[in-house]
């Protein structure tokens, strides 16, 4: 098998993992904090806390996590056959 596929399989799994985390974050804050009676709501920057954490903070946190995932874990690979063969030759 093309060794580049191993990298790509791993990155695809990481993408799925991040989406699962994203969903949990979104769901847990929305219904964990937002399921309470409105009278008990707390507010951050004027927004209900459930909304602030689930949607506003969630947006910021996952934008940062995507950045980290890509910069730290994703590998740069050549896509074209010829450049790929060339770089393989250089490694030898």
């Amino acid at each position, binding site marked *: 098998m*093309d060794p580049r*596929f191993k990298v*790509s399989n791993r990155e695809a799994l990481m993408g799925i993992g991040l989406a699962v985390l994203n969903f949990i974050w979104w769901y847990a804050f929305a219904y964990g904090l937002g399921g309470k009676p409105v009278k008990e709501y707390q*507010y951050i920057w*004027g927004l209900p806390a459930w*909304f602030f954490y*689930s949607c506003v903070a*969630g947006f910021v946190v996952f*934008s940062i996590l*995507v950045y980290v995932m890509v910069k730290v874990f994703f590998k740069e690979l050549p896509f074209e056959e010829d450049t790929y063969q060339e770089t393989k030759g250089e490694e030898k």
Partner: protein
Amino acid sequence: MNWEVLLPLIGFLILMFLAGLFTARQVTEGPGFLKDYFLGGRHLGGFVLALTMVATYGSASSFIGGPGIAYNLGLGWVLLSMAQLVTGYFTLAVLGKKFAIVARKIDAVTLIDFLKARYENKWVVIFSAASISIFLFSSTAAQWVGGGRLIESFTGVSYPTALIIFSFSVLVYVVAGGFRSVVITDTLMGIVMFIGTLIILAGTIVAGGGVPHIISTLSAENPNLITPFGADKSLTPLYLSSFWLLVGVGVVGLPQITVRAMSYRNSKAMHQAMIIGTFVVGFIMLGMHLTGVFARVVIPGIKVGDTVMPLLALKVLPGWLAGIVLAAPLAAVMSTVNSILLIVSSSIVKDVYINYIKPDASEQSVKRLSFSVTTIIGVLVFFVALHPPDLLIWLNLFSFGGLEAAFIWPVVLGLYWKKGNAAGAAGSIVGGVVSYILLDQLAPNLWGMHTVVLPVAISLAAYIVLSLLFQKNTENELSRQNII
């Protein structure tokens, strides 16, 4: 409508037209016409890739329909819209480098090229080409109607005139410049969408007297507006979660999005696009839908949801700024239809004509054919949009979910599961589409989930069961060469 608002809008239309036309000049020269016309020669950089994906994905509903519903239902609908944050990174991460590498090895230009090489089966190609043409044609026509209506309401010209303006400003550069023009105009439109969101959100917060005041006014009117459950308590957690499939991860199956996953220059471009795309799509969805909710305090008592955003822009912003903001939904519609138009055209020219009718067509005749098919479809869409038939409106309802149910597994499992084969793919496409239409008619939102969920599950079951049943047919050229 006054000239102060109209001028930025007209300026926007002219700018798009010129940008599209200017980039079109580069297309007609040089070899590899098909790859260039339908795929931009696989040269997309990160920023352009991110913006074209966001702009293609974001449609009128992100700027007009969605905020209108948020106006009526409250923060619960903003919560739902945030399921779309994943579209910024999920498609590129999952199709990822493998799709880009395989597409290059087999020289695929369209999604169907990939399916054809992967499954080596006539029926898979025919079912795919048919569902892409039918669903996407209906959805372009419906968006076209929306574009005409927007221009009609902003300028006050008659609907047919508005439709001519809209068609002219989209068609000319799509026909002449193909994918390259589409992605460049998409990028500019994405920027307009981003800036428009920023302006209208800020303007609405100021006009509403600050966020705390807006929220306490909403809470006093109806406390449910600031819960995740919607003003009428209709939004259950299960129902909202099921939208993660429809407008979130399921987007992997949309042909107009997948084709972009084979169009980028290198892995660096893909990495950048994930970072930029996630930020931009999150910002637009959060900003626009939140604005819709806040609008309830600034302009109370609006009955028709679709009129909330235009009225709001005129109320809280000076005329010229309102013009820029109102260009955003127009940009969203235009950037969606231009891509879809090209996909429909490519599936007719490349997937049907060259594959099955005339494989040895010369470069020159392919070129002529591509231009003329794109033009004919565009003109056809125009006439259909003038008097949209009921059938089309009906088909459009299935377009998004139907295409997802059809293609998500043949694409994703086709890439990552060696045992997948033609029987599974054909069953998955047919099963997904048919079950989606039937369920939508007979039992919509069954068990409290959006209708798309079950067909995607049925499509998955069909893919796996049929692939395993017909295992002896699995070996093909790709697996022999170890490409999959």
